[in-house]
């Protein structure tokens, strides 16, 4: 039994989730020491509230995008357009909700009335459809056009915000429609609706990659695309799928975000989400070169980013210093993940372990 202990410790340390969990624990411990109120969860009007609930609620869109981004990165690609896709999806929703749509007579009363001519299901469908189409476009450029992923998705990253502004006619469009607010602000059994959405998408993605062969094919393409092709797998279709799925995920994120802020803003919806999503995936330990991936680790990565952000707010760090703070997080993460640091830490831990063994 005694012999099992170091082996178990080693297994835990080599697990994919070990480092993300350590990072999350470190942030939470800091909170526990310096901001005792951080963990307080209360009930207000029948829903839970508190910093931790904020963390979950705020990180929901990023978690969604991170799930899609994980699959793209696992094939050795990257999708820079997710932020722009969020804006397109938000703009689609806002424009369809707008009761003036198709009406010649526009008055302020109509624009601020809590009604819409479009059924909710159609709004959702249009949101998700637009995002999925964007993903499909990226997928075609990468798989059929053989354009490097970074360049291919850069096109939509730049063009996407313009498209979003075209949809909303260059305006920041305020949304007045209560049912739509449900996705970003609603609660079921006291828990934010957005968390349920993340759970559903996560389960869907998990089912796709672990219960069908897509996950294996994605990893295989990421490790060696040529050998995968020689094995009779259409690497093109695998790539097409991951970009499309990533667009789908970004569209849901756009739905939640626009619902949360009650507006669609082509310039600011989902700003920098591509970078945060890549960061979340990297924190989760998936290599940018492709190959092995873990959806759960990426979701943890998104959670870490937002726990860190909310922590900074709690400490009273001004909003304009936030990015500098994030830079520190990025630096620490990258250092933690470098082979050199890991070797050093592993050696350190092993030496400690063997000394323990000797004293027994």
């Amino acid at each position, binding site marked *: 039994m005694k012999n099992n202990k170091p082996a178990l410790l080693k297994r835990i340390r080599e697990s994919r989730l070990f480092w993300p969990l350590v990072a999350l624990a470190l942030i939470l411990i800091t909170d526990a020491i310096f901001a005792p109120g951080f963990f307080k969860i209360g009930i207000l009007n029948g829903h839970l509230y508190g910093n931790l609930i904020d963390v979950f609620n705020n990180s929901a869109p990023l978690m969604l995008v991170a799930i899609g981004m994980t699959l793209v990165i696992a094939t050795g690609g990257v999708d820079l357009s997710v932020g722009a896709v969020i804006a397109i999806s938000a703009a689609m929703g806002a424009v369809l909700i707008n009761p003036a749509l198709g009406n010649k007579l526009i008055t302020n009363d109509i624009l601020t009335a809590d009604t819409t001519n479009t059924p909710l299901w159609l709004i959702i469908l249009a949101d998700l459809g637009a995002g999925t189409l964007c993903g499909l476009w990226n997928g075609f450029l990468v798989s059929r056009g053989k354009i490097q992923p970074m360049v291919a998705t850069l096109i939509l990253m730049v063009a996407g915000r313009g498209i979003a502004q075209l949809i909303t006619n260059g305006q920041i469009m305020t949304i007045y429609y209560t049912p739509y607010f449900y996705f970003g602000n609603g609660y079921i059994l006291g828990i934010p609706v957005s968390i349920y959405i993340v759970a559903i998408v996560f389960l869907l993605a998990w089912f796709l990659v672990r*219960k*069908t*062969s*897509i996950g*294996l*094919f994605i*990893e*295989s393409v990421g*490790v*060696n695309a*040529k*050998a*995968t*092709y*020689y*094995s*009779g*797998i*259409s690497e093109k279709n695998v790539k097409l799928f991951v970009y499309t799925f990533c667009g789908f995920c970004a569209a849901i994120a756009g739905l939640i975000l626009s619902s949360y802020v009650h507006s669609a803003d082509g310039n600011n919806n989902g700003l920098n989400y591509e970078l945060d999503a890549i960061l979340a995936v990297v924190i989760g330990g998936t290599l940018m070169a492709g*190959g*092995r991936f873990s959806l759960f680790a990426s979701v943890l990565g998104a959670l870490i980013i937002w726990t860190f952000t909310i922590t900074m707010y709690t400490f009273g760090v001004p909003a304009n210093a936030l990015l500098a703070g994030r830079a520190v997080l990025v630096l620490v993460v990258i250092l933690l993940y470098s082979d050199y640091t890991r070797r050093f830490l592993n050696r350190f831990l092993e030496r400690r372990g063997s000394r323990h063994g000797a004293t027994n």
Partner: protein
Amino acid sequence: MTTTDDFILSMKDISKSFPGVDALEGVNFSLKRGEIHGLVGENGAGKSTLIKVLTGVEHPDIGTIELDGKLIQVRSPQHSQEIGISTVYQEVNLCTNISVAENIMLGYEPHRFGSIDWKKLNALAKNALKRLDIDIDVTQPLGNYPVATQQMVAIARSLEITSAKILILDEPTSSLDVNEANQLFDRMRKLKSEGIGIIFITHFLDQVYQVSDRITVLRNGKLVGTYDTASLPRVELIAKMLGRSITDLDEVSKAKFTGEQKEGKKCLLEAKGLGRAGSIDPFDMQLFANEVVGVAGLLGSGRTEIANLLFGVDTPDTGTLTLNEQKVDHFSPLESLENGIALCPEDRKAEGIVGDLTIRENIILALQARYGYFKYLRTQEQYEIAEKYIQLLGISTPSPDQLVKNLSGGNQQKVILARWLATNPQVLILDEPTKGIDVGAKAEIQKLVLDLAEEGKSCIFISSELEEVLRTSHRVVVLRDRKKVAEYPGDVDDQTIIQTMAGTL
């Protein structure tokens, strides 16, 4: 005549192994002053490793190197240049956008009052080229000159900056036409007369005979021998490169496939006038059940091209391919997989293994591709399949969850074989299945191929080792210069095949 004292370089008992493969085993190599020495061998023979050891890119595990009678250790490529060994690689690695003179003197520019002395630099460069009888405007960008001239500039640079005693030319003629190559050979002879020893690596045997004094043949990391060019007939050279010596593969035997048997057999694969421009000229080929067809040919004769065409990696532009009496009209690996053809590709690392995945995942990959996205094999089934083939093929590993990149070359090859056997193919194309793996594993794979044929499958066996092809095949197809030139029954003698390959029959 040169005497034995004239050895400028002698490498003794050089061995170098990489994980899973012995790249060099006790190789001796010597170079005389004022000699052009041809170094030949098929892919994986160890030519490039030997050169890397000599130029300090790799360090030998054992063995000694003597330069001018003094024992030396080559620490790095830079060190090798300092001691007078210069190398010109196959691809000209100079900068085409700067002038010829700058290219020649790069890093060794003469200075005057702290800045580059351009006049002197150009004069030095001009001088360096004069040594090779070349008179061009050295202030022009290198890219303005043809590749042949660029090659000369590369040689001039290596001679100028190192006062070279030994010049290594690695496939220098691969991008030159006949006239340009002849010009190069004139320069080589001139340098030879100045007392420089030249090592000439090429797979053009004509050129070896045209210019070299002696020839060293390597095969599978071992020295076959060093011969005077004048006393080594061409046919014999090819035989030595391909290897006919009987090794410990004797347990492999085959039931000969006679003409009468063939009549009743089912034709599994038939290619009619199948060809692809720039790849392989149209050829006919038939493959029957229970049969192994060997493909023999020198490097670049179209061996791999045939495999890629039959498997659908490349799309043919003429001819037809019939499988099980059904015409194939869509060419892709997936289509071939569904038609029951499998290919173990030549380049194991780039086209075969998926290194960061486990043995289990590598083995089920093709089978899963055939089942598609939604019929995912349960983990239990995956392990069963993996275990079955690990046992069947004798893959030595502690567990099916081992990453494939950690296996030796032979075991990796077996994993790829397992990947295809799991799909239960009727036709198995093996492109260099024994390349870079040890003798024991080679024999196992050859035996496996014959066992498969006995079970009713048929194989196309492509190998650069003629002996191996003859040992396993019931029929042999011979290729030369991207053409199918002959087809022999399996009991043909190796001389006939060698002469066919050399074009002297």
